[in-house]
């Protein structure tokens, strides 16, 4: 019987709950355990297929690549070169990473970077520290030393021990190279470069094994679990301790997993993971190509691009991790962080320490100033605007798609945008007037109803995020409506987003998709709804609890059975031992 037959139409998650009760009881305390028990009573059904997702083969992102090089070789090894562009799918680059490959031009860059990094690792400055042995002769091959180095480094780069074949092949390459160029270290460096451009390094290829406790069920191998966990929480490859836990089989036990999750969540490196997630979710890659008309907005220098992103990330990290605040309050908080440049754009007075090139200070907008929440920050209103004017439609679309995970249809092909784009028409001074005139066209009304009432509430912010109360001499009306909730201004919009159930569900879904690297299937969606979302609500929308819940869950590490025909002859034991 195949999985598909067995699982068809079934929604049970009994296996998961059976495994996760004690775990969550320990983590979240009695109340949460009770909630889970209710879940069992409702849904338990023996022998059903578990919620499980597809495995992914994800190309490392630029940040992950950088992080791994720094983690493995230290910060004095610099990497250069250009990365291939990442691709966004289902709202996330993390999902798109599971669909891209490496082009010839891209591999040429990886090849350059790999050789540049490897040459530094084995140079005279670094070799004493990074190469754990000395060759018998500097000018000839040394099989034993090459093997020692490559197996040690290989384990960190491939995120699992090299197979015997892989190691033999790399050592042979190091030896052959050393002989050809008559230098042990050059040969070793070239072989290391090979590791750094190998698909086992560049792709996070997840491996699956049968679950020994449940016939017909599959799970990630321990090393693949370690990778998923580490890239999720730290946006980095597993550290040696986590690899050792995988090697010992600890990650297949709930106590062993808990120990690692606790350790990783307590580490400051969680900030890196949280920043990576929000940069991805908030589509900050859009800043790479963001341009503004500086004739109209001379304040917009290139530093605004980096400062805006950093402002929002600092706000998020502070609110979610430091203050352990309610996620939804990000849309209403008056607290943020500013640089002099941002203060000038927002037109607020703020003093900064002297003699610091890029100082940041915490800042709290006064209660009566309509600047509240990350929607009013330049990273949102500036990113989602036209170069020379704000755009209620673009902002409304972004709010729905990014913050609420709703899909707004693309505009039809032959729309006349003249009315909207002409900001000098004396009959339509404000964006509201222009959009109203535009949206009388029947083909447009439906979608604009989704976007404009939301986006128009942000009209108090110009295209670079500066506050304004008038447009072309006419007062701006920032009232609007979100899913039936009416409000008078942007502060009201923030509250409406805060209270909208889609807001918290969206972050739960996006975070899981970011962690798992694929669009969820039906079984995963139902599990998110009944488990992750409920628990997030019960925790008071505390983000660290959500991180913990995903990282500790059984579903996160479970996998669909391998596709029929995809594997030639892999015996489960061989897979388990290799990966």
């Amino acid at each position, binding site marked *: 019987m195949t999985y598909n037959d067995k699982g068809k139409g079934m929604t049970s998650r009994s296996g998961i709950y059976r495994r996760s009760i004690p775990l969550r009881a320990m983590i979240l305390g009695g109340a949460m355990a009770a909630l889970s028990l209710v879940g069992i009573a409702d849904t338990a059904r023996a022998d059903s297929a578990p919620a499980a997702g597809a495995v992914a083969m994800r190309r490392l992102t630029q940040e992950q690549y950088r992080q791994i090089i720094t983690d493995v070789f230290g910060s004095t090894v610099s990497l250069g070169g250009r990365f291939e562009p990442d691709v966004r799918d289902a709202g996330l680059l993390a999902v798109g990473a599971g669909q891209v490959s490496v082009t010839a031009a891209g591999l040429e860059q990886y090849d350059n970077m790999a050789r540049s990094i490897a040459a530094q690792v084995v140079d005279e400055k670094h070799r004493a520290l990074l190469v754990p042995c000395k060759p018998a002769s500097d000018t000839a091959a040394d099989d034993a030393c090459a093997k020692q180095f490559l197996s040690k480094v290989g384990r960190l780069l491939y995120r699992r021990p090299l197979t015997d074949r892989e190691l033999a092949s790399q050592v042979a390459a190091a030896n052959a190279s050393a002989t050809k160029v008559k230098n042990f270290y050059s040969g070793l460096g070239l072989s290391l470069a090979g590791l750094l451009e190998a698909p086992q390094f560049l792709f996070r290829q997840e491996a699956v094994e049968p679950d020994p406790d449940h016939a017909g069920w599959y799970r990630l191998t321990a090393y693949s679990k370690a990778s998923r966990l580490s890239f999720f929480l730290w946006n980095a490859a597993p550290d040696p301790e986590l690899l050792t836990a995988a090697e010992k089989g600890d990650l297949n036990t709930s106590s062993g997993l808990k120990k690692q999750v606790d350790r990783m969540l307590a580490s*400051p490196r*969680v*900030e890196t993971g949280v920043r990576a997630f929000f940069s991805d979710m908030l589509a900050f890659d859009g800043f790479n190509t963001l341009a503004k008309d*500086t*004739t109209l*907005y*001379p*304040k*917009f*220098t290139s530093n605004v691009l980096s400062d805006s992103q950093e402002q929002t990330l*600092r706000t998020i*990290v*502070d609110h979610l*991790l*430091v*203050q352990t605040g309610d996620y939804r309050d990000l849309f209403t908080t008056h*607290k943020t962080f500013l640089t*002099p*440049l941002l*203060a*000038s*754009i*927002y*037109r*607020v*007075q*703020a*003093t*900064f*320490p*002297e003699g*610091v090139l890029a*100082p*940041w*200070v*915490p*800042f*709290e907008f*006064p*209660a*009566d*100033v309509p600047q509240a929440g990350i929607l009013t920050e330049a990273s949102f209103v500036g990113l989602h605007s036209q170069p020379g004017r704000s755009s209620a439609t673009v902002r409304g679309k972004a709010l729905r798609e990014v913050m609420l995970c709703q899909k707004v249809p693309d505009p039809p092909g032959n729309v006349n945008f003249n009315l909207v784009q002409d900001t000098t028409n004396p009959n339509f001074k404000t964006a509201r007037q222009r959009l109203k005139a535009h949206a009388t066209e029947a083909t447009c009304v439906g979608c604009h109803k989704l976007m404009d009432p939301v986006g128009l509430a942000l009209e108090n912010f*110009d295209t670079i995020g*500066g*506050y*304004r*109360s*008038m447009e072309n001499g006419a007062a701006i009306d920032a009232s609007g409506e979100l899913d039936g909730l009416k409000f008078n201004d942007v502060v009201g919009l923030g509250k409406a987003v805060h209270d909208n159930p889609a807001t918290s569900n969206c972050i739960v879904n996006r975070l899981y998709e970011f962690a798992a690297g694929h669009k969820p299937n039906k079984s995963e969606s139902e599990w998110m709804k009944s488990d992750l979302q409920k628990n997030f609500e019960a925790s008071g929308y505390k983000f660290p609890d959500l991180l913990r819940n995903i990282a500790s869950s059984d579903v996160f590490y479970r996998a669909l059975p391998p596709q029929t025909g995809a594997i030639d002859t892999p015996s489960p034991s061989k897979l388990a031992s290799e990966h």
Partner: protein
Amino acid sequence: MIGNGTGRARHLLERGLAVAAVALLASGLTARAAMAETRGFVVSWFYMAAESQADDCPEGTNPLSEVMARKWLTDMGKSPAEIEAAYKDFPNNMYGAVVMRGKVDGKPVNIYTHPTAIPDPNVKTAKGHVAYGFNLDGKNGPDDFVDPQTKETGVDDKLYRALGCFITARASGGSRPTFPAIQWDMTRDQMPAWVIEVSGIEHNADGSIMDGDVKVGFYRSTGPIMRNAAGEPQADLTFQADNDPRMQNVAHATMKNGTLTTDPFEFYMIQDPFGVSEYRFKQTRIRLTLNPDGTAKGILGGYQPWLPVYTGYALGGSVNELNLSIDAPGIYYAMKKMADAYPDSTGQNQYISSSYWIEAVPAFVVHPDKGDKTALAGKVQRLAQAH
């Protein structure tokens, strides 16, 4: 003043986070609307004012440096061959050649540090009657000017007379004279910014500025400007006024039709040794128009010591003379002769009447030592109208 969050910040945030006080004033908007407004500015440009007329140098302007230099070398007794050698690759071989053209006790001396070591070259000076500024002495003499903007007569601006026939000090129609503009532009990135604060502004029902009394403060701040994408100072930055007692220039002013004019006051600001190291004015008047877009522009006039002005021109030595066509000792003598106030014991006037353009963009000015704040949210609201 609210210090926010830093006390609670844990290890996650401490890395790279500067801890600083954040100045806030959180009073209600409605309450503030009735209050008098304070506007802050940062000076974007400050340079000698000139409205050169086609006929104000009737004998022509002073010659270009390539012409002047030949005379300098000839007067030094150089042979034609030496002169030709100095002219090769002009002005690159000329820089050294013209420095020691003074003589003290028969020995050559540096002309920039000893401008009187040669006889007065009698450079051409401006004869016109149009110049920006103020009637500083209350008299209406034959040598005075008419301000092209205010039509005020009896305007005193002897500095323009002294320099106005050097082509790099001439300007008209809103352009900035080259030399003074270079002096400002080259120094403004590294010198502490100059800031202006206008307080007591009241508004008419239509939002325009009400006529009446205001107070003007002109201070040096503690940090430089930041440039925007257009290369001009970024607007709406916050500057802390330096509490150096020498640079607290505060005056009463009268607002009329959106332009304020101060009563006479004493003015002192440090600039930068590359430009004019210090500006000291007596009987200073400032008129400043507060534009609806938040910027301000106007004229500062007064009597200033002429020696620091000379130093500003002479400091660059032959590089300035040869590239900007000035005659340093000529400027020295011209200003000395034109100086029109505050004589020393010998009767030589130490001060010269002069006028400068002030251009400024909106900024927040704070005085942390005084606990004095510009209204924050009011500022947010007010400036928003302008854009």
